[in-house]
C-alpha cells in the first residue's frame, strides 16, 4: 500500500543545504507492522513527515494506495492525512482543557461525520485502544501519561485510517506503560490487521514490530523481516 521510490529530501537554509534523505526506497504492504529505526539525525523524522503527508519530498515518488502524493498541494495533503492516516505523537498532543471524548471526536469534526454518530465512533475507538470507560469524560490533562497515549491512539483510530503512524510513542512514558502502549499496537495489528509504522531510535522498542527498517545518514542500511516478535513478559508485573 505504501511505496517509496528513491525519495530525497533537501532542506535549504542560510547555512547551506542539508541532505536529510538520499534516495530511500522501500515498500510496505497492507497489515504490516514496521518499525523505522535510526539514531537522531538519521533522517527518520524527515521520512516520517513524508510518510505522514506532512511534507513533500524534494525528489522521488511516494505512492500511497497507488496514488502519487509527492506533488500534491497543501490542501490535498490535508485530505490524505484526514482520511488515510492516524498520528500518534511522542508528546500526545491532546487538547489539554477538553474532555477525552472531545479529543477523540476532533478528527471526526474535520472529516464531516454527522454529530449524532461522532460520540458512538469515539467511544468505540477508545474501547479499542483499551482506555477504561470511567475516564471518557475526564479532562485530558487529568490523565496519566499512559492513559493520554491511549487517548491519542483512539484519536488516531477514530477515522478508521489505512495507516497508523506512531512517532516515538513511548518516548515520554516509563518502560512499563510503554510496554502496554506497544502491546496495544501489537494487538491492533494482529487482531484488526491494521498497518502500523513505528518510528523509534531504540532497538528494544523496534523489536515489537514484525519488520525493522534501519536508516542512517539518510539511507536505508537494513531491512529485517520476520522479526521474532518480542513478547511482553507479564510475569513480573
Amino acid at each position, binding site marked *: 500500500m505504501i511505496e517509496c521510490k528513491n525519495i530525497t529530501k533537501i532542506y535549504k537554509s542560510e547555512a547551506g543545504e542539508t541532505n536529510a534523505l538520499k534516495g530511500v526506497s522501500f515498500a510496505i504492504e497492507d497489515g504490516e507492522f514496521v518499525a523505522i529505526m535510526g539514531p537522531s539525525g538519521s533522517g527518520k523524522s524527515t521520512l516520517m*513527515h513524508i510518510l*505522514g503527508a*506532512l*511534507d513533500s519530498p524534494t525528489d522521488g515518488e511516494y505512492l500511497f494506495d497507488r496514488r502519487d502524493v509527492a506533488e500534491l498541494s*497543501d*490542501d490535498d495533503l*490535508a*485530505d490524505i*492525512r*484526514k*482520511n488515510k492516516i492516524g*498520528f500518534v*505523537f511522542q508528546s500526545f*498532543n491532546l*487538547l489539554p*482543557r*477538553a474532555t477525552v471524548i472531545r479529543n477523540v471526536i*476532533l*478528527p471526526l*469534526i*474535520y*472529516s*464531516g461525520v454527522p*454529530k449524532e454518530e461522532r460520540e458512538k465512533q469515539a467511544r468505540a475507538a477508545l474501547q479499542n485502544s483499551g482506555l477504561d470507560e470511567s475516564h471518557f469524560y475526564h479532562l485530558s490533562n487529568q490523565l496519566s501519561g499512559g492513559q493520554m497515549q491511549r487517548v491519542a491512539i483512539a*484519536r488516531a483510530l477514530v*477515522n478508521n485510517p489505512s495507516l497508523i503512524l506512531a512517532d516515538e510513542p513511548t518516548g515520554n512514558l516509563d518502560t512499563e506503560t510503554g510496554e502496554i502502549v506497544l502491546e496495544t499496537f501489537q494487538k491492533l495489528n494482529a487482531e484488526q490487521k491494521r498497518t502500523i509504522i513505528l518510528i523509534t531510535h531504540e532497538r528494544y522498542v523496534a523489536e515489537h514490530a514484525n519488520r525493522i527498517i534501519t536508516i542512517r545518514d539518510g539511507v536505508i542500511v537494513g531491512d529485517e523481516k520476520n522479526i521474532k516478535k518480542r513478547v511482553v513478559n507479564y510475569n513480573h508485573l
Partner: protein
Amino acid sequence: MILSDLFQETYSALFVNKARSGLTILGIVIGIGSVIAMVSVGQGATGSIQSSIEALGSNLVMVTPGFQRTTGFQASAGRGSAQTLVLEDAEAIQNELSLVKNVAPITSGRYQITAKGANTNTQVSGVTAVYSDVRNLQVDLGSFISEQNVGNLSKVAVLGPTTRDDLFGENSNPIGQTIRIKGIEFKIIGITEAKGGTGFGSQDDMIYIPLSTAQRYLTGSKSVSTINVQAINQGSMTILQEQITSLLLSRHNIIDSTLADFSIMNQADIISSASSITNTLTILLGSIAGISLIVGGIGIMNMMLTTVTERTREIGLRKAIGAKKKDISAQFLTEAIMLTFIGGIIGVVLGWLISLAISHFGGITTKISLFSVLLAVGVSGFIGIVFGYYPARRAAKLNPIEALRYE
C-alpha cells in the same frame, strides 16, 4: 467543519481564557458604548434644535424688511428698523398667491411694561388672529387676539407664560387685569401655553396685542417688521418663496432682484443650516469615540496573536489530523469576530444606559437611533474581521511540522 462545530470550538477557546477574553471584550464594549453615547448626544442636539425651529410653525416663509441697496450710496439703517414692508404687502401676498394658506404680518418692538408695581422689558408683537395658527401657538388661559380686536383697535393683550410669571407671579391668573405698555393701558385677555423654545428667542417671554393697535399707538407707522407666510404644504415652499419675491419686487418697483429691499427666509433653510452644525458636532463626537473603538480593535489583534502563539502545537495537531488552512483561519477569525460581537452587543446596552444617564442627570436631550445601533454592531463585526484577519492568517500558514515541534 460545519458552523455549529465552529461555534463550539470558539466558545470553548474563549471560555478557557475567561479573564483575557473578558478584558479584550471590555475594550470593544468601551469603544462601542462611547460611540453610541456620543452619537446619541449629537443626534439629541440635532433633534432638539430642529424641534425648536419647527415650533415656530410649519411650512413657514418669513419675509423681513431690509434696506434698499442703491449703487453708490449705502443706507446705514439696520434691518430691524427698516420700514419697507407694509400691511398692504401682506394683503397682496394673501390675495394674489395661490400657494398661500395663511399670512400673519407682525410688528414688534421691545418696550418697558409695568403692572401693579412690577415691571419688565420684553418683546411686544402686534399680531392678527391667524398668528396663533401660523406659529402653532396654543392658548392656556382665556383667548387669543381675535379679528374683532384687530378691527376695533382694542387695547387687549395676550401674555406669554414667562412674562406673566415676571409681572404677576408664577402660575397666577391675571386675566382681566391690566398692564401698561408705553404708558397705555392694556387689558389681559389670555395666556399662551409654554413652548419651552430655546436658542431662537423664547416665544414664552412675549406680549401679543392686535396689529392695528400696535401700529396706531406704539410704532405709529404703517410698516410691519415680519410677514409670516404659511405655505399650503412643504413641497410648495420654494416656489412660494420665488412668487413672493417677484410679487414684492413688482410692488416695490424694483427691477434688479439683487437690490431687493426685503429678505425671505425659508424655514427649511434654517433647519438645514442648523442641522449642518449639529451634524458636524455628531461627527466630531463620534470620531473621538471611534478612536477608542480602534484601540479596542488593536486589543483584539493583540490577544489573537498571543493566542496563536500559545496554541501553536494545537494548530499543528489540528493540521496533522486533517484541518485545512481555511479550517484554521475560520476558527481564529470566528474567535475574533465573536469577541467583537459580544463586545458590540454589551457596548450598545452600555451606551444606551449612558445616554439615558446623560439625559436624566445632565439635562441634555439624547436620541439613540436604530441606525447608530446597527452601525455600531456592524462596525464591531468589521473590526473583528480586520483585526482578526492577520492573526488567523498567521495561524493558517503555520507549517504543521514546525508547529508540532514548537515548545
